[in-house]
């Protein structure tokens, strides 16, 4: 049972460890190291200086605004929906249907989602045509579906169900006795929300909003299927810098943008898990 046995035991985990080292850790190291390298392999910070190019700044700002807006709107409506579910029969059919639908819809992304919206509110979409019959021109203000305003609408389609899934446990954790207690002490509905339920749900709400932010910040497929040229959000700029078709092939720069994205996503995720820990204290 000595050292020989120990080394034999380790062999069993080697194939797995080698595989993740090659296909997960190696690409990650290529990104982090490559962000600090010039084309000829010498060390540089110029890739990060390039982040101040006007089109990169505007793509980053777009990405942050898009993610923040869809996170806040998605979280607000998702929270209302979660509350509407939680106040119903816990074993009811409605709840089961809505929760499983949220599970399916939250994973409904990518190319298909973009097409579903083009089919409904695109220039030849069902809603657009119906609205025209009632004299309403959906596109009076320009073809907004093909720019950031279109993304804002489309992203809500996966943000709201995600919010329902992650926020529902917190809403379920609210006990009716707390409301009764507030009422027996003479509190109104406003008092109850302001001083009891609101402060209790706030960390969970904030945490879930952050999760939604990270979720749309890293989304690429839907945006690229909807808006095929240009790079209005950061993930598209990364793809542009990777591709040689546009004549902008800049791998080092792509890596610097990728590092920026990792930093933002990791910060948001860490904040989320801190807030989540705070919520779980009273959820038990």
């Amino acid at each position, binding site marked *: 049972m000595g050292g020989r046995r120990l080394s034999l035991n380790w062999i069993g985990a080697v194939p797995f460890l080698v595989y993740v080292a090659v296909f997960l850790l190696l690409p990650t190291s*290529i990104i982090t190291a490559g962000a600090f390298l010039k084309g000829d392999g010498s060390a540089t910070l110029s890739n990060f200086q390039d982040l101040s190019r006007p089109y990169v700044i505007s793509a980053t700002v777009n990405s942050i605004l898009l993610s923040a807006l869809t996170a806040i709107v998605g979280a607000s409506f998702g929270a209302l929906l979660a509350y509407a579910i939680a106040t119903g029969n816990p074993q009811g059919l409605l709840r089961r249907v809505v929760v499983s639908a949220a599970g399916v819809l939250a994973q409904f992304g*990518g190319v*298909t989602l973009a097409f*579903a919206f083009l089919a*409904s509110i695109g220039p030849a979409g069902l809603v657009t045509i119906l609205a025209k019959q009632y004299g309403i021109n959906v596109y009076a203000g320009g073809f907004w579906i093909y720019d950031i305003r279109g993304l804002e609408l489309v992203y809500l389609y*996966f943000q709201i169900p995600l919010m329902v899934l992650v926020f529902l446990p917190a809403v379920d954790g609210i006990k009716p006795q707390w409301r009764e207690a507030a009422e027996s002490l003479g509190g109104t509905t406003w008092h109850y929300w302001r001083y009891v339920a609101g402060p209790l749900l706030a960390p969970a709400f904030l945490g879930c909003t952050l999760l939604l932010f990270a*979720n749309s910040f*890293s989304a690429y497929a839907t945006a690229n299927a909807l808006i095929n040229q240009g790079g209005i959000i950061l993930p598209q700029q990364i793809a542009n810098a990777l591709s040689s078709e546009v004549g902008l092939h800049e791998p080092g720069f792509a890596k610097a943008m990728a590092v920026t994205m990792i930093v933002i996503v*990791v910060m948001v995720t860490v904040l989320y898990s801190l807030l989540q820990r705070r919520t779980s204290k009273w959820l038990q």
Partner: protein
Amino acid sequence: MAAVTQSFQRTRRQKLQVFRAVIFVVAGLFFLVPLFAMFEFTTRGRLLTDPRSLDAWKSIATYPDLIAAIVASVELAAITSFAMLVLLVPTMVWVRLRLRRLNRIIEFICLLPLTIPAIVLVVGLVPMYQWMGINFSDSILTLAFAYVVLVLPYCYRALDAGLSAIDVKTLSEAARSLGASWFTVMVQVIVPNISSAILNACFLSVALVLGEYTIAQNLLYNNLQVEIALLGRANAGVSIAVSAASLLFAFVLLVLLSLFNRGRGRLRLDDLKQVMRTERG
């Protein structure tokens, strides 16, 4: 006083019911209209006044690139599921038997891809695939290498749930003491006991691989989703029909998954949340 409280509570309940009804109707419209519109769009005739037709669905077969992409994606789904099982199941069993200390590390590694957006991961994969294209193979099927990493978190959770439900140690010790080889232990003792977890992991990998766009597109491979997006620029009807078909297929997979998963709804919900994050990539 009691009567006042009662009527107070009744108005509150009525208000709550109105609120719930409004929320459910608004949400229902927002989420069902795009789904309905997809099927409406694919059954349109040439002109809006023309009768409904299934031309878009029928002409799917007339696009050889599309067929090739469908075949490639299905092959990738099969290869990825198989490779994932071969890599993950023996390792997870071995770690449970002999290397308990490594358990947390393996879990951490498996969940790591969740925090790396696909568009970021692909930046690191580009030089590797360039090298592989020159020295090994530039077939679209090499995407399976990356996809195995992509499905790790979901499959790890599914398999972990299965393995936690059985006593791996006792089972394999019993089999070994009766003279079974490690291979026999794995194939005839462990695998049959976690078959539903294995099925789950496979379903999740298939759904994920069929929906994957970001990695394939940036590595310049035309898988199903990339081809659908390209086709959408030429013929919206057909590409929306294929999207609707792939959506239906994914939906059938998820329903099957939930059937196999009865009574373990929690796990399924978790998996779905995870899948969606990667699929959007």
